[in-house]
């Protein structure tokens, strides 16, 4: 008994092509992929069933030289089924064309919702975290400010003591100017931080809303009542 390579290889190629098509999004191409795959597998059944021989018809060909009839019968059955499935899938194709104007297989909306809820949760979490960070920053800044205030008063007191001394007057003025400047910087920095915090928060919310809106739209598109056929 021998194995003839060509038909096997042929079936292999059919399968390969079939799988390649099967992994696309267009339903028609999927269907063709199924058909190719089916042909390949049918070929495999017959080939694995036994060696080539004469048609299994009594009286026409000798029994010992007949090809194995059982795989043939099985393949015949599967052929018929494939035919029916082809027709049905084509009907599905037509219907999906009616609904969506194309034959692409759509992804599941509910699963998208779940994924979205997951990301939404993360976003909210990150926003909270950020807010915390900035709150702390502001607090620190305030503390520093207070400390500086304290220091200034101290200086001023000492200045007041030494106010009598003409010689130190301009130095004290310089000092005061110096403190005023620092104070201004301080306030400015604080304002800056506050602003950054606000706009970061705004942007985070915007992201979140955008994500949600986008998904809503996708779903709305998926559920447009106009596409629900005639009834």
């Amino acid at each position, binding site marked *: 008994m021998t194995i003839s390579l060509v038909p096997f290889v042929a079936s292999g190629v059919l399968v390969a092509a079939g799988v390649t098509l*099967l992994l696309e999004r267009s339903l028609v191409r999927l269907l063709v992929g*199924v058909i190719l795959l089916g042909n390949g597998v049918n070929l495999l059944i017959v080939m694995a069933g036994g060696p080539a021989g004469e048609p299994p018809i009594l009286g026409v060909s000798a029994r010992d030289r007949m090809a194995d009839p059982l795989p043939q019968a099985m393949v015949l059955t599967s052929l018929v089924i494939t035919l029916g499935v082809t027709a049905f899938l084509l009907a599905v194709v037509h219907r999906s064309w009616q609904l969506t104007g194309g034959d692409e297989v759509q992804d599941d909306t509910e699963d998208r919702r779940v994924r979205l809820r997951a990301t939404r949760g993360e976003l909210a979490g990150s926003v909270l975290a950020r807010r915390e960070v900035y709150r702390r920053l502001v607090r620190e800044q305030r503390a520093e400010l207070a400390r500086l205030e304290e220091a200034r008063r101290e200086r001023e007191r000492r200045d007041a003591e030494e106010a009598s001394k003409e010689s130190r007057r301009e130095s004290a003025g310089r000092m005061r100017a110096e403190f005023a400047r620092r104070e201004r910087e301080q306030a400015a920095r604080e304002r800056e931080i506050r602003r950054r915090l606000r706009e970061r928060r705004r942007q985070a919310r915007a992201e979140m809303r955008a994500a949600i809106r986008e998904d809503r739209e996708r779903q709305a598109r998926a559920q447009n009542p106009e596409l629900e056929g005639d009834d």
Partner: protein
Amino acid sequence: MTVQALISIPVTLPLLAAGLKLAIGGRQRRLQALISVVTLTTVLAVSLVLLVAADTGGPLVANAGGWAAPVGITLVADRLSSLMLVVSSAVTLCVMVYSLAQAYADQEYIAPLAIFHPAYLVTVAGVSDAFLSGDLFNLFVAFEMLLSGSYVLLTFGGTESRIRAGATYVVIGLASSLLFLVGIAVSYGATGTVSMAQLAERFQVLPGYLKLLVELTLLLVFVVKAAIFPMSAWLPDSYPTAPAPATALFAGLLTKVGIYSIIRLEALLFPGGPVSVLLMWAALLTMLVGVFGAVAQTDIKRMLSFTLVSHIGYMVFGVGLSTAAGMAGAVFYVVHHITVQTGLFLVTGLIERRTGTTSLDRLGGLMRVAPVIAVLFFVPAMNLAGIPPMSGFLGKLTLVQAGVAVGGPLPLTLVAGGLVTSLLTLYAVATTWSKAFWRAPPPELAAPAGTVLESEESPVTRVRREEPSVTRAHGTEGITGREIVTSVTMPLPMLGSATALVALGLSYTVLAGPLSALTRRTADELLAREPYISAVLGSPR
């Protein structure tokens, strides 16, 4: 006529009925209904007889066309098959009554019986054939029957979501069928037979790699059908979109056919071997991934679909243990799960009919608004969560005992995983309950009948009438793009069939003794293998 003569009835009778219905055409509703009910009742009776006979007298065999085993196709009704038949036929009967009642109640809205019920009957025939068939290729044909039936039921009405889900479901089904054919090709090439009994003998002499190849290929096919991780994701996408009765049928039976086939594969065709470890891992992942999915859902139907997936893991766990106790546990759990899951989906159908949605974001107050439905939901839900003394607990207990008895790190891990699953199932169910039934009801539910409710945020415009009215589910609520018939009044048969299923689930508690003994006997018979083979191949007994 001997008992053997009855074996073919569960397959041929539904087909006959389907043909008859088609030949009659969609006109005489009464006659149509009568045919369906009588058919399924007969099937139930027959399967009961078969169960008794198979339990007392060993596996029953019928040769289709009078051609004995290796040449022709044999139908085998051993304990497992006939037990499966009994449960499935009971369930299918209830679901059929339910759908008939629904169809009868709102005849203006549902599409004709001319399509739904023939498809339903063919599916039932396919399921029965899958349970009975003793021939690998015929098993393939049986799968095709039930799959093609389910294709039609799932895409019924051709709404957007059903087409989306249907395309996925159909293509997955086709791919798995093709892989099935590959498996058949290889096994016929290697052994030159498709009769399971003979395969069981001839596989043993094959070289290891080939054995493994065939086993794993077939396993992959059945894993897809049974929705076991990593091939489970297609199920929650597709099942919930179908009409309520169809979803109930699918959830109850189709995956279980896959489990049944896995049991046959592991017990009869490839006893022992390294695959059982693989199965146990798959079981663990299925349980956990499924139940976490259930926790994440906001729609009852989808939540239930995910619990369906995760509880498939229990059965695989039992099979993977490959001890008598484990098998018994798996079989028991299958029986329990078919009943309870179907019942739950029917009740969910009632909820949907009452409120027009199954989305937890929009449900509430059902305990006050619809107390009957509340009870009907609570009991099987707790059963599903494995609250004793209901059957869910008994099944779980059997599996835990089996796992502990085997011992070892992996089985104990699985026991732990199973218990975690059970806890999370309880959590998911409780959350659902407290949202949909306890929380204060939304205005459109509390409102008295006759008021027209329209609002921007609720995408559903609902007119509350006593008589049925169509609700089009759009917008951001749960599973969308469907037409739901809502009505305040429930047809009695609908309630009745749902109640019947719930009661059946409870009856397993009362019958725990005999049932668990029966499953144990089933497991022993499965692991012995000899009764099956000798019954089919007719070696001297």
